[in-house]
């Protein structure tokens, strides 16, 4: 569950978001749409507590920005999966190591990790590529690797910030389908995009941001 209550945040250089109020219930798939610079990434960062609102409050599952501390942030993020436009894969580790990393963070038993990684890579269509390093994968594959890393811990909430930004139309469509498949397992999904054609007609709620202000729901 994500709830924004009169949330405002302004960056030093201007921009940001202004007086946002909305709620996304558990198990919903929501699109966040808006042009570049509209505040989509700021909103996402507020959700994973990378920034704390200057006014108002953000509630994500049982965590509230009002009671957030540096010690609580890792715990809050452990139930959130994140997919980024620039993937943020670790270049010095292969696909297996990248995907397994969240499980090590959560303290999973080592003997259970290989099977879980294998299942997740199969789900995103990267089975058999576990020894590959990020630079040996295509853009679409890297994005799916990023998705695998985000979902391996079975998060309650999956955030995807412009995940199709660097992908061709076919790969973009496949990725959205994959997100929908994950959503079907009960995961709440919030996906930001500036590509309206990609998300229209899918039957999911859309939040529209323009110059930091929420336009539609």
């Amino acid at each position, binding site marked *: 569950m994500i709830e924004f209550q009169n949330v405002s945040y302004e960056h030093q250089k201007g921009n940001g978001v202004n007086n946002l109020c909305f709620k996304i219930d558990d198990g919903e798939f929501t699109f966040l749409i808006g042009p570049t610079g509209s505040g989509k990434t700021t909103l996402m960062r507020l959700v994973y507590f990378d920034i704390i609102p200057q006014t108002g409050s953000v509630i994500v599952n049982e965590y509230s920005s009002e009671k957030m501390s540096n010690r609580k942030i890792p715990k809050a993020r452990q139930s959130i999966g994140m997919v980024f436009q620039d993937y943020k894969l670790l270049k010095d580790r292969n696909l297996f190591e990248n995907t397994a990393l969240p499980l090590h*963070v959560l303290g999973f038993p080592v003997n259970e990790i290989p099977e879980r990684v294998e299942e997740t890579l199969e789900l995103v269509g990267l089975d058999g590529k576990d020894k590959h390093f990020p630079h040996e994968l295509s853009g679409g594959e890297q994005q799916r690797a990023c998705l695998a890393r985000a979902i391996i811990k079975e998060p309650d909430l999956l955030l995807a910030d412009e995940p199709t930004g660097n992908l061709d139309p076919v790969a973009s469509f496949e990725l959205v389908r994959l997100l929908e498949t994950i959503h079907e397992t009960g995961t709440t999904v919030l996906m930001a995009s500036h590509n309206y054609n990609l998300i229209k007609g899918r039957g999911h709620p859309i939040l529209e941001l323009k110059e930091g202000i929420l336009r539609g729901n």
Partner: protein
Amino acid sequence: MDKFFYLLTDGMKNLWRHKLTTFTAVFTLFLALFFVGLLATAGTNTHKILQYLRTKYKIEVFFKQDVSNDEAIGYIYRIKQIKGVRTATIIEKEDAIRIFKDQFGENIIDILGYNPLPVSAVVNINRTSRDRLSVEPIINEIKAINQVDEVRYQGSLINKIERTYTRIIDQFPFLAGIIIFFTVLVIYNTMKLSVYGRRELITSLQLIGATRTFVKMPFIFEGIFIGILSVSLVFPALIGSINGINYLLMNFTSWGIKLIFDPTVLIWLFVLVISITFVGSYRAVSNFLK
């Protein structure tokens, strides 16, 4: 426990993943520690060099003309009792003729018809003292013997050597402190650069919910491994260098100096490097996480 072993092995794997950074850090630490090790060895051997120089200190005592060889033996016994005197060797009148002939190629009796050379003695002083040696009290006591005519010694040279030695010994802790401070600084900055080079990794780890400890531990383990690697290279390098210097000293000089390597230096170097790499990597990641 699984998490701990993961972090430990990840720290080790990082050494291989970032070979160039590892090599640079190990090499920098190696140079810094090798220098500190050499300095410590020099410190523990300074007195050996001084002892060698002290063997060159020579006091020559000339007795009055009328003192016979037998009488001189009695006076020499008194000289030997003076505090700071190690040996005193008599040079009888006959020995003096021989020495004169060796030096000038002439027999003085053939020239003068009699032996004008007095009985004398060569006095060596105690060289093992770690304190500054002052020869003046010894000279004064020798001069106090009535039958002593003249005492010759290299007063200014001895004073200069002893003064220089005292100065080095006095300033050694200060000098060592400065060198260790800069060594700590070099090691600390090496660790800092190593962490800074992987800031993307830290950001990614934070985004997937890694705690501060989880982020820090591989860097700390990696830092300690770098320290262990460099110190294990320093040990043979130091021992090898000192053996090499000893070989040169023994085979190509007549100084009779053999440097002694104090094994506790290795323990100190190990403790030093582990402490600095631990604190250095811990602080470097902590600063980055702020």
